[in-house]
């Protein structure tokens, strides 16, 4: 953990998160990340007192609405985006979908 929260690890996090930091932000966040990660690491310690607890991702996991309910879309992309911003599949054109197309 020490290594991950060091300023060196911050560089990797910044790269993954696609975030540019200025020098002042870099020094503040470098200091804070180590403190915050130490603080958040308390969470796993408490689990030692319990058996195998399943994770909870949604508070009412038993009543998740079905995805099919979302299918009736109220907004169409063509209502608010210029045609050149929409690809042939009706999706927003984004660069990572174009990677490899030459």
């Amino acid at each position, binding site marked *: *953990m020490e290594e*991950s*929260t060091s300023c060196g690890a*911050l560089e990797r*996090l*910044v790269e*993954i*998160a*696609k*975030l*540019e*930091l*200025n020098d002042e*932000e870099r020094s*503040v*966040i470098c200091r*804070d*990340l180590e*403190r*915050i*990660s130490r*603080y*958040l*690491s*308390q*969470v*796993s310690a*408490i*689990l030692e007192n*319990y058996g195998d*607890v*399943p*994770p*909870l*991702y*949604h*508070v*009412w996991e038993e*009543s*998740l*609405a*079905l*995805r099919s*309910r*979302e299918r*009736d879309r*109220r*907004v169409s992309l063509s*209502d*608010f*985006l210029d045609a050149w*911003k929409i690809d042939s599949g009706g999706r*927003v054109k984004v*660069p990572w979908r174009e990677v490899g197309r030459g």
Partner: protein
Amino acid sequence: MMRQPTVHELLEAFRHGDTDPVENAHRVIENIARREGKINAYISLEDFDSVLEKAEDSRRRWMRGAARKLEGIIIGVKDNISTSFLPTTAGSRILDGYVPPFDATVVERLQKEGAIIIGKTNLDEFAMGSTGEFSAFGPTRNPWDEERVPGGSSSGSGACLAYGGCNAALGSDTGGSVRLPAAYTATVGLKPTYGLVSRYGLIPYGNSLEQISPMGLSSLDVALILQVMSGYDPLDATSLNVNPDVVPEGPADPESIRLCIPGSLVGMSDEPVKKSFYSLIDRLTGEGASVDTVEIEGVEKALPTYYTIAVAEAASNLARFEGTLYPSRGDYSGDYWRFISKSRGEGFGIEVKRRILMGVYVLSEGYRDEYYLAATKVRRIVRDELARITKKCFIATPASPVLPPKLGEALGDPLKLYAMDAYTVLANLSGLPALVVPSGFSSNLPTGVQFIGGKLTERSLLSLGMLVEELTGIRGAYAGG
């Protein structure tokens, strides 16, 4: 204490012809003109002539007996809730100039019942903050003491209510973001049961935790707003298929009230907060309410659990903001990845960056199990424990462990800032409803009490809120300035 009319009182006065929506709109606009320059509660405001025209339409509707449920009521909407008629910035430079092509479901529902949206209220950037100081559009000040914060992240919603710049307001609550401002501005805030209110159109921060939430000058006002905005929405996959009546008939019978106080948790509060809290509890017991002290399993780790989940969801949610689409800034040139790193670097403020980076960290290969997965497991322990306790009583705590801090006081230390949410995150982790009402004043600063109820017990919670207002006499509090 100076008073201002509540929504319920205004609707009654409109009905009887004692005042009308135009007169109300003039009063609100005057308050904005007088206080807004210093308080900074709004990021954008509707043209006042347009507000007065809508108020005139409402006046006519009242005259001809065609008034709707919130006819002529003026509402401030937090600026992370989409509106097609005003920009929606989420308090961030990266969204400066973005006008959504649609209205959030809650906005549609309020307007359909005659409410007038007067403006978009200030907030901590992307709702990440507890003081209202992290907005790219400048901090909001507390109308009760302009050197202090109004609480966050729905800072502008609480502040505009307190100084009379709206009749009611919408906020969003991910970890206490309507309840802290309610406590710090002597207003009322309710975080509804997760799924009771549609999140369609809310710019997301922590999807599994947050709810759009009403704020008002009384518990009854909050009930009236919630009644209109809640209910099933097919556009939100997490919307509950329920449509309950949340408006109480009156204050709760004190003898029917059973409260559970997590003693060791409340013990962490500063002395003035504890004094105000226990003084209210004494009054409630004096009226016949019963009180037990309880210990809640896992509660001591609720705050780091909450922050682990919140930052993980934030990192994922904010990945969509890459500087070209929201708002559209045209084509980019050169290296795409460098372009978006630069855009995000320039567009996000320090707290948002801190949380995104922390989120990437807790989700990263090798650390995910130790942090994120562990937090989702502790969340289950806390959720089950709170659900069990709230079947037999309302959990009572102060809303915040501290009085409203001075501007800048908590900014330098993120852990100190996060600790302000110690009591409020419980309801977000568990999905349960929680109400904050004023409990009194300490050194002329407002204090609030929080009650957490069982799933979908909003009506009972709000009737308890009405009882507290009867005891404290604080309803429609006006920070006249």
